């Protein structure tokens, strides 16, 4: 099909362009500013992110709900799904920039290019969200990953940062290689890399090279499972999360994971029919079921004994990825619309909650001593009741306790899983529910240390200006999404 280029198509990917341009501008501007003025860079970065979010919202309203969305340059598909994720990514970027700024002042490592790279990573993620072609997905993933590797080492002199980056890079590169090889095989099998045409090929071709297709799909599953940090492929996550500076960890845990899931849904749920790839009796969902079960259980259990709060939140984010996987499986097994909505809502709730939690962790650290041990939180309630209350809301939401968004997200995912293929996933849902019972222990342990113990020594938290705004927004968003989820479900296509 001839993809003639016409200017109007660009109108649909304005958020992407805004992010890219702002990112490049920031990288250039960094050389002109020294020291303290770098906060203006933060201003520009946040402005760029918010501009992208606003434009995405406007475009979201204009794309009618049922229409499949416009294909831009044959590579990107601008539909409501993509805009939803763009808004999510922009929100995460804005928050990371805000928290990053005051975090940098506190631990006095000034790296101007932090904001530039942040915006470029956001651009990569948006490309992933909009990917209509395996190649554009690959490019998006690579842009994002490279940017993230750099962000993880942005604090050059810290040993832990560089080590984390090294591990993340090696594992990431291997995963990218897997992905590329997968794409190659799928290309070999179907002769095209465009997702829509793959779908057509799968639907009616006679002499399909099934072996290649299955191998390619399996490799893609491994690569994306790595990005989402599902259990056997999750080893890098705890180390990378702990090593990276806290705002970047927040960004990694939320935006990276959300965009990875976006690609997951784009490639697997929308293109490959669950039964089309003769991989095990339930197509590509059978490896995913094993992954989801392992992820939820082992991550939860590992998090029980964690003393370091960043590692604990890392394991918790892995277990939440497991729950999202259940949603993706349900989508694959026939309950497509409801389950996709459930996953989108769940990712939104998870993003807002985890961002808030990491913001509080960042806010607590002072004078280059990052307070990361759970015991550092003891007695927070008596000193800073506001922050303690916000952290409690985040922990309750992560634990899936009503009336928070976390609970409703989990509820909605498990409900859609129950509807898919006549309760075949019942045992998976029961496993998920038992896991959330186990997870409540370590979430409430944090709350317990904050409220039930007396303060160990004085807190001198960061300048609280921007952070209080972030915390208030996140906490209120969680409660609102929890109590009145109807609006957000509507947005997510429910």
């Amino acid at each position, binding site marked *: 099909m001839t993809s003639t280029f016409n200017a109007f198509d660009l109108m649909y990917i304005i958020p992407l362009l805004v992010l890219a341009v702002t990112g490049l501008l920031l990288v250039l501007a960094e050389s002109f500013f020294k020291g303290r003025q770098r906060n203006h860079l933060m201003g520009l970065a946040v402005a760029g992110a918010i501009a992208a979010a606003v434009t995405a919202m406007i475009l979201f309203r204009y794309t009618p709900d049922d229409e499949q969305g416009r294909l831009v340059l044959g590579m990107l598909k601008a539909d409501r799904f993509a805009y939803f994720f763009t808004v999510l990514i922009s929100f995460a970027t804005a928050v990371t920039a805000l928290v990053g700024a005051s975090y940098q002042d506190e631990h006095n490592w000034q790296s101007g290019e932090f904001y530039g790279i942040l915006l470029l990573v956001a651009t990569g993620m948006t490309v992933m969200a909009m990917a209509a072609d395996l190649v554009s997905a690959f490019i998006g993933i690579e842009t994002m990953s490279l940017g993230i590797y750099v962000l993880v080492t942005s604090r050059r002199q810290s040993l832990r940062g560089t080590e984390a980056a090294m591990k993340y890079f090696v594992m990431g590169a291997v995963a990218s290689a897997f992905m590329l090889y997968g794409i190659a095989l799928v290309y070999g099998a179907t002769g095209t890399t465009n997702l829509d045409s793959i779908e057509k090929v799968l639907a009616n071709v006679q002499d399909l090279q099934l072996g290649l297709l299955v191998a390619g799909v399996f490799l893609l599953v491994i690569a994306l499972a790595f990005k989402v940090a599902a259990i056997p492929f999750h080893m890098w996550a705890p180390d990378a999360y702990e090593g990276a500076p806290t705002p970047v960890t927040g960004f990694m845990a939320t935006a990276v994971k959300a965009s990875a899931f976006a690609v997951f849904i784009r490639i697997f749920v929308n293109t490959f029919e*669950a*039964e089309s790839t003769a991989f*095990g*009796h*339930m*197509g590509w969902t*059978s490896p995913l*079921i094993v992954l989801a079960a392992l992820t939820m259980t082992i991550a939860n259990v590992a998090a029980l004994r964690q003393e370091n709060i960043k590692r604990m939140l890392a394991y918790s984010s892995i277990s939440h990825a497991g729950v999202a996987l259940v949603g993706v499986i349900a989508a694959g*097994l*026939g*309950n497509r619309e409801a389950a996709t*909505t459930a996953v989108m809502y769940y990712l939104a709730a998870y993003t807002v909650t985890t961002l808030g939690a990491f913001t509080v962790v960042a806010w607590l650290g002072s004078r280059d001593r990052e307070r990361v041990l759970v015991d550092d939180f003891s007695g927070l309630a008596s000193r800073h009741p506001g922050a303690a209350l916000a952290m409690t809301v985040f922990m*309750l939401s992560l634990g899936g*306790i*009503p*009336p928070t968004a976390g*609970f409703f997200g989990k*509820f*909605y995912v*498990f*409900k859609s899983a*129950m*509807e*898919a*293929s*006549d*309760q*075949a996933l*019942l*045992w998976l*849902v*029961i496993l998920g*529910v*038992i896991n*959330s*019972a186990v997870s*409540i*222990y370590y979430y*409430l*342990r944090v709350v*317990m240390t904050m*409220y*039930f113990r007396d303060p160990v020594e004085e807190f001198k938290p960061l300048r609280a200006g921007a952070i209080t705004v972030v915390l208030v927004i996140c906490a209120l968003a969680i409660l609102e999404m929890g109590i*009145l*989820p*109807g609006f957000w*479900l*509507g947005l997510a296509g*429910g």
Partner: protein
Amino acid sequence: MASAWVLPTILGLPLIGAILVMLIPRSEAGLARGFGFGFSLATFCISLAILGYFDSEYGRFQLVVDKEWIPGLNAHFKVGVDGISLWLVILTTFTTPIAILSAYRAVDKHVREFIAAMLILEVGMLGAFVALDMFLFYIFWEVMLIPMYFLIGIWGGKRRIYASIKFVIYTMAGSLLMLVAIFYMYAKHGAITGEYTTDFVALQKNLVLSSEAQFWCFAAFGLAFAIKVPLFPLHTWLPDAHVEAPTAGSVILAGLLLKFGIYGFIRFAMPMFPAGSQAWAPLLAILAVVGIIYGAYVAFAQPDVKKLVAYSSVSHLGFCVLGVFAMTAMGIEGSIYAMLSHGLTTGGLFLAIGVLYERRHTRRLAEFGGLWKQMPVFAGIFLIITLGSAGLPGLSGFIGEFLTIFGTFVASDASIPVPRLLAALAATGVIFGAVYLLYMFQKMMFGPITHEANRTLKDLSGREIAVFLPIVAMVFFMGIYPRPFLKSMEPAVERFMTTYHTKLAQTRDQTYVPGVSPKQARAAESSNPGALVPRLQPAVAASAPAAVAPPADAQAAALQAVAKRATAPPVAVDQAPAPPVAVDQTAGPPVATKIDPQTRVAGVKGALR
């Protein structure tokens, strides 16, 4: 209807109160207490309006408010009250102001948060009692836990952290299985009637699961409620929670939170899954009787008076469980009445212990002795409440126990194994009850004054008397004139029993639960929703055996107007030897599955089974 404003108000008022209290500056502890008491008292007065509107002849739900809440999930904010939940709501609004009033001097740190936690707890409890939407009920059920967790954790005793964690994990584990059962019902109801809803009344009316599915769903619901009751083997969280909780917390925990177990059984578990209830009834009844005797025995051996009263709750609530499973009008009304009186008497006992704790800061029985001489007014009140709890005729405890044992005695063999023996064993609980309660009373009140500190104890202050007076008055009133309470429960209990038995009959001879496989679902979506039914029918009608051939006209109304059993019977009944077993074609829990060939579930078998 006119009275629709009542329920949302009693839910909203404490919520607003909690929010306002949080806004008060930390230094204004007195103001916060005033607010707390004021709002809870206002809620109580408004709850009396329910009595005004309540028409005790009408068995169904009254003062119903039904507003759209989550369109995606088709979950409604639907609340209503009937004979069973009416008095539990009143008990909640009655006990909370008393608990807040009793904590005026007991709680001095974080007073603001304390009052807010109590008010949110009240919202949670009231919500759970009046919720008619399964999802809404589950939300309030969990919302109740968190304030209680904070009450035990922050203002508790020494081992409060262990006790609070144990309390939350214990209850949460049970209730999460209930959540799975709710999903299951939700999905099955959607599959059968095409319209997904969590509205309890609709689920109750047209969802008849197979007996095997009901067995497991009842097990899931039952576990959550048995932990809450607490039934015998699952009760170890209660003594820890009580010993460590502050007085007000204990009053609410014992007086109200324990009632949700029984209420859950009567409202949700039994009418929804009668076959499961009948299968589990023997075990639960026996556990209840064991609980009665075990609770009494262990209570006698407790050095700490709060633990003693905690175990007495285990014993008392054993009666309620027994009464409910006896499935006789007397048994059920008796158990509801026993719940109300237990709320009063055990709440009163905890308040009394709180009064002593405030003065002596200890709860060990050995520390007290000969207090009657020192605090005669307190002794008199304490005696009345203890005797009320021991089930003395003329006081509230007796009616509950008398009716529950009576109901169990005359119960039919179908519901519980050996009704008369169980009733006799339960009646021994009355003896042991007298033993340990009077043992406690003698150790504290009679005998010479052994400890010097006991000589200087002051008797009850004005406020404290105000706390006890309503409880003592109600203990007498409910003992002497129980008629208004029993009259209003009558129709609701009748209806409960009729729905139970009709659904039981339906389950016995119900034929088939058509599940919709993903392949057909998608095919149906693409073509037209209506097509699903006819496409299913012809493939099946031809081969439907004569035995259960549905009348021709009923088929047309097949899916939408389904009163489940009447239509769509592509019967997979293996005609020959096996009885018309209800084939629930889905995998259901992995234990015993029966796949119905009709709905070819593409790709769902194999590894997953």
